[in-house]
């Protein structure tokens, strides 16, 4: 038996992990490389749609279910059959999870490439407009093209966490999500300290100078967007597995583009700990608002959710105007350790003498 408070925290952690992943991916793009990706939704929805469309179909094909049933029309029957298989076998479940996540990341990278291609050589505002428009289009296709993820009704996703059974499912899902989030955090942190991280900052701070030093700006931007979109897609894919279904309507611009922006800007762009703080503050606050929503609702002549958007938009603007660097500002680039520097100094001096 898991007490209510603990369920609340586990639920919070699962959601937090997903938003940490998404906002870290935005931090690579916006914080380090200075690319205003207003189409974060594209990558997240891409990952989620991939999970809705592919792993279930593949498993159904392997177990010979596609001959008997139509994947969209008889989705519930197929999921019931697959649920039995996956529920009995942790190995298949986890293999499916890992492979799906890798493929979803690949799909996200491809989407990021295609979506940014028309505007990748232009000024960043054109890129931002294009990415935003592409994200809207992907959502619209998911909504209207029924064969992909069931259109308006949505589709169920094979559940890789089912084998642990009952109440522990959420705990397992949360720990998997947190593990992925930690791996991605370490990756992004290493990336930011590596030569490419410094190159990205150079590009962000002064494109002309970076170009003069022989950096290919277009290629760098393209790579950054592909990596960012791949990570964003992992976030979307994990959310699809967590919620157990994918509906095109559930992926909107507010949640998957605007919220990550708020987290990154308020927490502190180009600082992964700032982003971590931003995501934690934001997700906790939101959870609390939802928790106390019923207490607040009778006093308002409208839905509480709009008040929340209003507060978030205002908070973002206030931070932009009064503290544009965020709560935890960007730190100077990490250099080599003092000992190594002294060693190099000795070597240089020895040669000079």
């Amino acid at each position, binding site marked *: 038996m898991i007490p209510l408070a603990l369920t609340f925290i586990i639920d919070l952690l699962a959601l937090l992990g997903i938003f940490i992943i998404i906002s870290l991916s935005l931090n690579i793009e916006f914080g380090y490389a200075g690319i205003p990706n207003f189409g974060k939704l594209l990558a997240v929805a891409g990952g989620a749609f991939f999970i809705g469309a592919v792993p279930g179909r593949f498993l159904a094909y392997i177990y010979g279910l596609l001959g008997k049933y139509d994947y969209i029309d008889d989705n519930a029957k197929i999921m019931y059959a697959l649920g039995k298989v996956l529920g009995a076998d942790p190995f298949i479940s986890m293999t499916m999870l890992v492979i799906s996540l890798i493929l979803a990341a690949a799909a996200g990278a491809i989407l990021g490439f295609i979506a940014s291609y028309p505007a990748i050589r232009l000024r960043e505002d054109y890129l931002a407009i294009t990415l935003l*428009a592409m994200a*809207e289009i992907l959502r619209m296709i998911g909504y209207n093209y029924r064969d992909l993820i069931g259109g308006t009704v949505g589709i169920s996703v094979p559940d890789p966490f089912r084998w642990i059974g009952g109440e522990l499912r959420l705990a397992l899902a949360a720990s998997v999500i947190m593990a992925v989030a930690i791996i991605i955090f370490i990756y992004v942190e290493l990336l930011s300290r590596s030569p490419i991280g410094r190159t990205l900052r150079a590009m962000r701070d002064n494109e002309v100078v970076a170009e003069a030093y022989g950096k290919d700006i277009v290629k760098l931007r393209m790579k950054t967007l592909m990596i960012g979109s791949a990570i964003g897609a992992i976030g979307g894919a994990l959310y699809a597995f967590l919620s157990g279904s994918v509906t095109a309507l559930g992926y909107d611009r507010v949640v998957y583009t605007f919220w990550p922006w708020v987290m990154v800007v308020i927490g502190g762009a180009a600082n992964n700990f700032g982003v971590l703080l931003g995501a934690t503050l934001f997700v906790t606050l939101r959870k609390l608002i939802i928790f106390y929503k019923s207490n607040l609702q009778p006093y308002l*002549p409208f839905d509480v959710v*709009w008040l929340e958007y209003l507060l978030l938009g*205002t908070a973002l603007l206030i931070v932009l105007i009064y503290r544009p660097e965020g709560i935890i500002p960007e730190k100077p680039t990490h250099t080599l350790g003092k000992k190594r520097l002294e060693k190099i100094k000795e070597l240089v001096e020895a040669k000079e003498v």
Partner: protein
Amino acid sequence: MMPPMFRDAAVFSCLLALLSIGLTLTYMTTKVPNFAHGSFAAMTTYITLILVKILKVNPYFSVGLGFILGGVIALILYQVILKPLLDRGASYIVLMIATIGYDMILYSLINILADYLNRTYKISTRLYILKSYDFRVFHQPCIFIVAPAMAILVITSLHLLLTKTRFGIAMRAAIENPALAGVVGINVNLTYAVSWFIAGGLAGAAGALLPLWLMCNPDIGARLIVSIFAASIVGGLTNIYGGFLGGILIGMAEVLGTGYLSLTIGTWIAPYRPIIPLAIMAITLLFAPRGLTGISLRFLRRFKR
């Protein structure tokens, strides 16, 4: 007898032209794409709703009110949010984020208004259309005459303002070179603020006419913004005539393209309508990133040589 598809195309492209003229105008002044532009129009669709359903008056009164409200909303964005950021030397990426934040505020205000109207006056405020409240002139819906007339009136008066009046010339100077314009005594901030007011006003006026022809919902701004950006980019984002031309072109292509495709291929294609402006935008960005007006200038130069 004209097929209704052309009427659709005429109304939509004229309203889109009004919206993209405004977006182009603001882009020219502050060099930032205003992501809240669609919400300016979404806000004023509710003025029309209030006038028609609650006050029960002529829906065309909302054009003037919409112009003022849209202008004021845009002016607040410029004066309260963008101006302090610009003064501090913020990059245009920060300005873009600010417009997105403002868009979010407007979006929530629109939804609050919609919920409030719905609960207080028991009228439907989501997915509503007011086509039946329009008048008929010469056996045509009135908006079929009003929208093109307004588009032509607006582009003509903007042309006169920018070329024939002292203030308009000052505006152009401030857009061309703010520092130099400041030196010769032009109040750059005032000209920018007026540009933003006009831009927001045009969006508001277009938004006020929208419910007479299209199904409206609080998120109509997000639906329109792709078309508005496509139209402005096709126009080149450098002069208002380009914005006008782009709006007409994208509007026509969107409505007629979807119409003909659904006649020939099948009606399943109709929901994919937003792909048309996006595709045109992508092609423009790839082959003529300066837009239509950029192309024509380049061609002219080639002929001169």
